[in-house]
């Protein structure tokens, strides 16, 4: 894909060896991709979407997960059963009703409301609440009990003791959100009707569907739709390493 992105379109498929021909390398495909797919706007939109969604999601979901894992309150099990049921709901099933709801909440139209429409519905995620609860359940209860005896309230125990200990879980959740929403296609297609709030995947799809079909530009766009995630993943992976080095399997 990387090789094909630097070659004229007609060489993208067919002979794989043709991709290694150094004489025809050029940046032309990238220029075309930026112009035809509106990639500059698309990269900003996708970036902002993830920047808003991931930190908010980490806070909201881990807070709820901690309450489910550690606190006793009336209706907890019933509420958690609801959350489990929500995990299963495929986005595709709810997409159209969700779009009608988002319209009622005025989450379409303007630039910022479109951005909110891309982000807000997916901040709280039953799936992530469940995953983080599993991580909280694995922590030894004694640490928090000791803190409670020393007078630490629920908030202190959650922020100071439990959260730092589930860092691998938090990184996993952040990565899952990153992957899901970077590559999400159906929801951005429905909600972002403006040119300047298209995501990268929508830009790519535009290249596919609008003639003329230019495989070189498609490959260039695919590279740009892939590279940021790879870079971000390496960045996140650093946070996995220290824990890994301490308690890895030998």
């Amino acid at each position, binding site marked *: 894909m990387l090789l094909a992105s630097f070659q004229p379109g007609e060489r993208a498929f067919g*002979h794989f060896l043709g991709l290694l021909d150094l004489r025809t390398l050029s940046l032309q495909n990238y220029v075309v991709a930026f112009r035809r797919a509106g990639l500059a706007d698309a990269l900003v939109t996708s970036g902002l979407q993830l920047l808003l969604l991931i930190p908010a999601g980490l806070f909201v979901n881990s807070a709820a997960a901690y309450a489910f894992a550690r606190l006793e309150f009336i209706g907890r099990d019933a509420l958690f059963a609801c959350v489990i049921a929500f995990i299963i709901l495929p986005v595709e099933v709810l997409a159209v009703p969700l779009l009608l709801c988002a319209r009622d909440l005025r989450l379409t139209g303007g630039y910022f409301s479109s951005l909110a429409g891309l982000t807000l519905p997916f901040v709280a995620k039953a799936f992530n609440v469940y995953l983080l609860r599993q991580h909280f359940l694995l922590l030894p209860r004694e640490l928090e009990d000791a803190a409670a005896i020393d007078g630490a309230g629920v908030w202190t125990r959650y922020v100071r003791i439990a959260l730092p200990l589930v860092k691998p879980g938090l990184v996993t959740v952040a990565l899952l959100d990153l992957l899901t929403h970077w590559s999400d296609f159906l929801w951005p297609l429905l909600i972002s009707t403006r040119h300047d709030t298209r995501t990268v995947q929508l830009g790519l799809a535009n290249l596919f569907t609008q003639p003329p079909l230019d495989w070189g530009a498609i490959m260039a766009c695919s590279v740009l739709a892939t590279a940021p995630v790879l870079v971000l993943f390496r960045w996140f992976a650093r946070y996995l390493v220290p824990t*890994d080095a301490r308690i*890895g399997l030998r």
Partner: protein
Amino acid sequence: MSGRHRDAWPALGLMLPGCVLLALFVGWPLARTLLSSVRSVDLLSPEGGPWLGLQQYSDLFADPRFLRALYNSAVFCALVVPAQTSLALLLALWVNRRERAYRHLRFVFLAPTLVAMPVLSVIWCGLYQPATGSEMGLINAVLVTLGLAPHAWLSESAIALPAIALMSIWQGVGLQTLVFLGGLQTLPREMFEAAELDGASAWQRVRYLTVPMLRNSIVFVVTVTTILACRLFVQPYLMTHGGPDDRTLSIVQWIYESTFVDHDLGRASAAGLVLLSLVTCIALVQRRLLPEEVA
């Protein structure tokens, strides 16, 4: 220590943002879906038409195309879930080491997961391309070089769905490996050192220490893989359009078609709820078979 009322206020505070958002963006659309599944609703006039009751559901199960989609999704689950879960566990055990080389290897397995599914579907279309001279896809080119018969992978009815399943396992296994790695990293290393000193073999350590202690992760991975497999959509949509002869038509694709092609929101909602209840049953059975251990 645990009065049921003592924790109520802090719990409310911690859960409020999550619950409000979930109610707004999952609960409310779900309620709308439930309502439209018992009525005749057109996509373009979502206010809803006449009341149909359960008629919608009996029509659904009389539709051979929907039954075909149901069967395809079941076959896809049966192909993907066991293969992907065991492969992910093996890979996680293999790469969960401290040496630098393994960290790079981990990244290699994850790479396909990091690339968006629409992009991968198009590229695998290229790989699976049938044998037509210079346009031959890479997989067939390799097969022919090895002296084996080439196949039209995506248009032969017997192998189209397994071909998509293979590509999906390759794409998804990295993510499940990541979840297993997250679980492996919370295990106490001392126990494994003690077992090793006592002469437990690598297999014994995996069988009697890792697998039981990873139970939560395993339940999680099996459940999630099943759910994701039931949501199959992008791959057949882009690679085969549900063909040949609806052999790769998935439930979600059926729902998508009745929503956006037939504009029949009511019928689509009913099918969505059938899918939902199916997956719920599978998840419940799995949780019963593999009871969750609460620390």
